[in-house]
């Protein structure tokens, strides 16, 4: 756990000095950057109530890129992307070292099959639409590091749905420095409407993981 030393010198001293009754219960080593589970769920399984997507099983290179994007304001600054704007302040204080620490921590989480929440889509209608996606994300939606495309199979369906909508509406991928996100914008534009998005995500749901 990094940053342990910092916490012990600053904060814990503060709480030891305060005289109130709760002080005794405040343990040592309080602060680090390992906040992820509050929003992303136990062992990063994803948390629909907070709109925090699954991190367990997500590629470390992809998480790193997104954390850096959030930190730099390349992602999470569009006001319509509310969960993104909630993520950004979390990433801003991260150092490169704490990002490395987080990747190691997240890497230890076991992937468990994702719950399917979107049940009213037409996967068969989504299959041909997925053709566009397959070029980068792979026929099985397994992802392709060389192209910088993360796996989609096994991700929370409600998150995929929300991100496709974000790309289509320009809430994500429109920042000048978001080179990978920029590639997604025209792709999402090929999906005519919410129904098309729902169908393609329903197809991704059939690919399992």
């Amino acid at each position: 756990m990094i940053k342990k030393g910092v916490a012990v010198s600053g904060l814990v001293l503060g709480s030891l000095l305060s005289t109130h009754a709760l002080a005794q219960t405040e343990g040592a080593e309080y602060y680090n950057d390992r906040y992820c589970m509050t929003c992303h769920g136990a062992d990063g399984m994803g948390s629909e109530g907070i709109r925090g997507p699954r991190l367990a099983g997500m590629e470390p290179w992809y998480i790193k890129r997104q954390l850096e994007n959030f930190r730099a304001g390349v992602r999470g600054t569009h006001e319509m992307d509310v969960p993104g704007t909630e993520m950004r302040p979390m990433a801003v204080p991260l150092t490169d070292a704490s990002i490395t620490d987080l990747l190691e921590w997240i890497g230890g989480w076991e992937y468990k099959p994702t719950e399917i929440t979107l049940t009213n889509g037409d996967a068969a209608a989504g299959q041909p639409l997925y053709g566009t996606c397959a070029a980068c994300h792979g026929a099985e939606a397994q992802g392709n590091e060389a192209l910088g495309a993360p796996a989609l199979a096994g991700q929370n369906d409600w998150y995929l749905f929300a991100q496709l909508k974000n790309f289509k509406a320009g809430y994500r991928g429109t920042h000048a420095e978001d080179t990978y996100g920029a590639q997604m914008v025209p792709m999402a534009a090929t999906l005519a409407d919410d129904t098309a998005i729902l169908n393609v995500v329903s197809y991704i749901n059939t690919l399992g993981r």
Partner: protein
Amino acid sequence: MTNPVSRREFMNLLGATFGTGALIRVGSALGMLPAVAALTRPVLAAPAPGAGTAVILGAGISGLTAAWELAKAGYDVTVLESSNRAGGRVMTLRSGDVVDEIGNRQVCEWDNEPHMYFNAGAARIPSTHRNLLSYCKELGVDLEVFINESKTALIQDDAMLDGKPIRNAEVSTNVRGFLGELFAKSFTTAQLDQPFTESEAETIMGLIRQFGSLDREMNYKGSNRAGYVSGGFIDHGVQKEIIEFKHLMKSRLISQTLSANEGETGPLLMQPVGGMDRIIAGFTRALGDRVKYKTPVMSVMVKEAGVEVAYLQDGVPQTITADYCFNCIPAHFMAGIEHNLPGDYMQAMKYIRRGEAIKGAFQARERFWEKEEIYGGISWTSAPIRQLWYPSHGIHKEKGVILAAYDFGNGGEFTRLSQAERVEWLLKGGEKLHSNYRQMVEKPITIAWHRMNHMLGCSARWGRSGGGMTMEEEGLYHTLQAPALGRHYMIGDQISFHGAWQESAILSAHWALADMDQRVRSAA
């Protein structure tokens, strides 16, 4: 002749016009008073042999209540709390404390003195919250009066009187004068004769006159209730001029000023001496090492033989199995925790939305409000900070902690600001009420409950229709209130019709305990 007004209709009309306070006052004049909520402290049977363990998820006040009642009945209890502190939304800040907001961690740097604290969540205890009060008594928590309304506090609205702040007493006196006059004119004694006896009608006209501070002809000509401009003690007092209703009615804060001190936030309110978390400390003292901190729950599996809960301790996975489980973890987190709870349960949880609430506070270099004859209570403003609270405690000490903003149920905009922007927002609002505010305050703290670690919201929002719960919503509520497999209970103010009160959280725990107890007794 218009239809005569029955006693009940007249009471309702009074209530609608002047708020419940007037209703109660007339009610008592006529010998009728509303009932008080029941005390529901459960008396639990001793556990059945081999079924005496309970695990409590979350050390919110509902979880602590369940834990304490079960412990007293002889259950072997473990409380798992993810934070380093108990209390959840009962949080008091003092020198050195941390505000564990995600992405905006703050350390409180106020002077380290007993009166220099801030109740960042729950702050007020109504007289009618009997169950909470009974725990204060049992746990030895000293209480003092909380001052919600001060007649010398200020009301300021950019839309009224060119934004000039006026005193609470000027608002209430002039509004009551206007309404009293209106009332006296529309209800002549002749009309009142019908449903009332002559002496009752007289009582009512007298009440109206008193209410509005009217003269003998039932006209409002101003009143010394609004305060004097000068004098009044050993020389002639100069009464303040009437502020005409047409000016006052420009501000939405006028009804706020009148209603803010009625109902649950009406007098008499209380607070624990030294901070609201004294109640939490009372529970944790009583429970001792049954409460485990920094032990986030990772999974909840309800099985035939018991409830199996996985959690982390120092980052190491642990499991505990218990006969009963009481869970006050905010429902919006449960989708992110592994579980096997029934589908309709989850459907109900997913329906609840996260609420928003924000507060801000400053250390005041001096108690500048006391120089303006303010010794507690609330000033209201049309600025987005909405209110300033002057502490009820520490009167005449050098410094104090002032509540710099409080918006319950809103505040999303504030939540999205950086700390520096939030502080500027607080200062701009406070300056509307006190021109020297910026010079007087320091060491800001901001609380966005929507972003607080382990909480991410306040308070659970059930209703989406604007009014109360719809039939469907009530159905979902009852689904979630009922135990899963007779072993797992959701509790907390989220399982109540009346969110954001500690009393509701306690009552939800009592409901669950009583339900469990009934099962235990009927199986015996």
